C-alpha cells in the first residue's frame, strides 16, 4: 500500500508536468467549449426539449474517443519502450501497485478535465442568465452527467490502460483504445438496432444488449436514476481490464 501511495503521487506529479496532459486538456476544453457554444447557439435559435448542458453532455463520446486515448496511451507503452517499466519492477513494488497507481492517476486527470468543463455552463449561467434561472447551468443534469462520466470513466480508463499494456508503441496503444472505446460506446446502440427479435437464435442477446446502452446510462444518471446494473457493469469491467493489465505487466517480468 505504501508503494501504491508513492507511485500514485509520482504519477499525478508526472501527469501535471507532462506536455501530453496539457495538450490533451487543451484539446478537451476546445472540443467541449466548441460543442457547448454551438449548443447555446442552437438553444437560442429554436426551442428544444434539451437544455444546452444536456445537449453538450450528449457529445461525451467525442472527447472520450479523441482525448482519453491521448491520456492512456503513454502509461505503459512508453515505459515499456524506454525500459523504465522493467527498472520499476526491479523494486519491491508489485505490478498490481504499478497498474492501480497509473489507472487511478489517469482517472483523476480525466475527472479533473470534466470538472473544468463545468466552468463553461457555470460561467455562461453567471454572465448570461437571469438570477434564479438555472436553465443555462442545469445543475441536476450537469452533476448527474458528471457522475456518469466518472463511473463509466473507470471502465474507459481501464480499457485505455489495458491497450497501453499490450504494445510498446504509444500510437498503436491510442489507436487500440480508440477502437475499443468506439466499439464499447456504439455496441449497445448497434445491437439494439439489429432485428434481434426476428432471429430466434439470437434472442438471448436481447437483455445483455439492453445493459450496454451507454447513452441510456447517461440519460438515467442525468435524470437522477440510480440503477445498480450499469454501476456493476462498469465496476466489473474495470476490474477485469485491470486484472488483465496486471497479468500483462507480470508477463513482461
Amino acid at each position: 500500500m505504501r508503494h501504491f501511495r508513492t507511485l500514485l503521487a509520482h504519477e499525478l506529479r508526472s501527469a501535471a508536468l507532462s506536455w501530453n496532459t496539457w495538450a490533451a486538456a487543451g484539446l478537451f476544453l476546445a472540443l467541449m467549449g466548441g460543442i457547448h457554444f454551438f449548443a447555446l447557439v442552437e438553444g437560442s435559435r429554436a426551442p428544444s426539449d434539451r437544455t444546452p448542458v444536456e445537449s453538450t453532455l450528449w457529445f461525451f463520446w467525442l472527447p472520450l474517443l479523441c482525448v482519453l486515448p491521448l491520456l492512456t496511451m503513454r502509461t505503459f507503452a512508453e515505459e515499456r519502450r524506454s525500459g523504465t517499466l522493467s527498472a520499476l519492477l526491479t523494486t519491491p513494488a508489485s505490478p498490481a501497485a504499478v497498474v492501480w497507481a497509473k489507472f487511478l492517476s489517469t482517472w483523476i486527470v480525466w475527472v479533473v478535465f470534466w470538472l473544468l468543463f463545468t466552468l463553461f455552463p457555470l460561467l455562461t449561467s453567471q454572465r448570461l442568465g437571469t438570477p434564479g434561472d438555472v436553465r443555462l447551468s442545469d445543475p441536476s443534469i450537469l452533476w448527474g452527467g458528471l457522475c456518469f462520466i466518472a463511473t463509466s470513466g473507470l471502465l474507459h480508463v481501464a480499457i485505455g490502460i489495458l491497450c497501453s499494456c499490450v504494445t510498446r508503441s504509444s500510437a498503436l496503444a491510442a489507436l487500440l483504445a480508440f477502437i475499443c472505446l468506439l466499439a464499447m460506446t456504439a455496441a449497445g446502440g448497434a445491437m439494439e438496432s439489429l432485428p434481434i427479435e426476428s432471429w430466434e437464435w439470437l434472442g438471448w442477446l436481447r437483455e445483455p444488449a439492453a445493459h450496454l446502452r451507454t447513452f441510456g446510462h447517461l440519460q438515467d444518471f442525468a435524470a437522477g436514476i440510480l440503477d445498480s446494473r450499469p454501476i456493476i457493469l462498469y465496476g466489473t469491467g474495470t476490474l477485469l481490464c485491470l486484472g488483465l493489465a496486471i497479468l500483462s505487466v507480470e508477463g513482461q517480468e
Partner: protein
Amino acid sequence: MNEAAPLPEAAVVAEKLTKRYGSLTAVEDLSFSVAPGEIVGFLGPNGAGKSTTMRILAGTMSGTSGRAAIWGVSVALDPVGAKRHLAYMPENNPLPEDLRVEEYLTLRARLKDVDPARVDERVRRVMDDCDLTRRASGRLIGQLSKGFRQRVGIADALLAEPRVVILDEPTIGLDPHQILGIRDLIRSLRGKMAVLISSHILHEVEQVCDKVVIINRGRLVAQGRTEDLRRELLPEISFTIVTRADAAALLAACRATEPAATVATLPSVDGWNAFRIGLPSASPARESLAGALIAAGISLREIAEDRFGLEDIFLAATRRAPGEARRP
C-alpha cells in the same frame, strides 16, 4: 541493512538455470553462486547469455527451468521478497528523462522501502559517493551525459544498501577517470554487499573481482579465482627469450632441464633471435631455467616470464567446449 537476519551460505544462487525462446536456448543448465560480500565478475562473449541470466536473477524475466535465489529467497516463488535484498542495474540503464536526479533517487528510495526518516540522508550519501552532488543533482536526467547516467544507475543500485548488487556493464560509456572512480566504488563494497558484475573490460574485472564466472553460448565454461583458472585453463607457462643462440641449441639446453619444454621462434629483436619457451606449469624448471641456460653456454640478452591475464583465461575458457567446466 537488516543486521539481525541470518547470513545465508550464498547471496546469489543460480542452479541449473535454463532459458529458452522457442527453439533458441539462451541459457542452459547454468549453475554458480556468489558468497556474501564477494565481488564476482560475470564474463562471456556477446550473446553468451549474461544479460539474460542477470535479468532472471533480478526477477525481471522468468527462467524456463532451474532455480534462482537472492539471499536465500527464491526469485520465482517470492519475487518481492527477493527484490528487497537486491539492486539491479540493467545494461542500457533505462532512466526517466523528465525527472531530476534527486527526485528520481528519492522516488526509488521510497519504492525500495528505505526508512522514510533516512530517505534524504541516503539520497545525499549515494549522490556524494557517485560524485553527483555538485554537477548533476538538480539537472534533468534527460540532459545528463552517458557517464552521469551510469552514475545515477549505480547510485540507485546502492541506495537501499542491498545485500546483493547486480551490475550489467556498469562502466560502459565512461571515460578512464570515471572508470577509476567506479572501480574504487565497487571495491569499497567488498565485504558489505555481494556484487555480480558483467563487463567487457577484462582488466577492470581482474582488478576488482574476487572470482569470475565465464559463460559461452549460455553454458558455464569456467568459474573460480583468477589464479585457479590460470592453472586450470593455461597448463603451460612460457618465457620470452632474446639471445644469440639458435633454436636447436636453445631447445637442447631447455630439454636438458625439462624434457617437455617447447621452443617457438618469434620475430627477431634488433638483430637478436627471439623465442618463446613453453614449460608445464608445474615444472620445477620454472625457477631454474635462466641459470640452466647460462650454464649451457646460451648468452641471454633478455628473459622474462609471460604473464597471462584474464584476457588469456577468457580466450582459453571460451574456446573450450561447454560442459568442461568444474561444477561449483
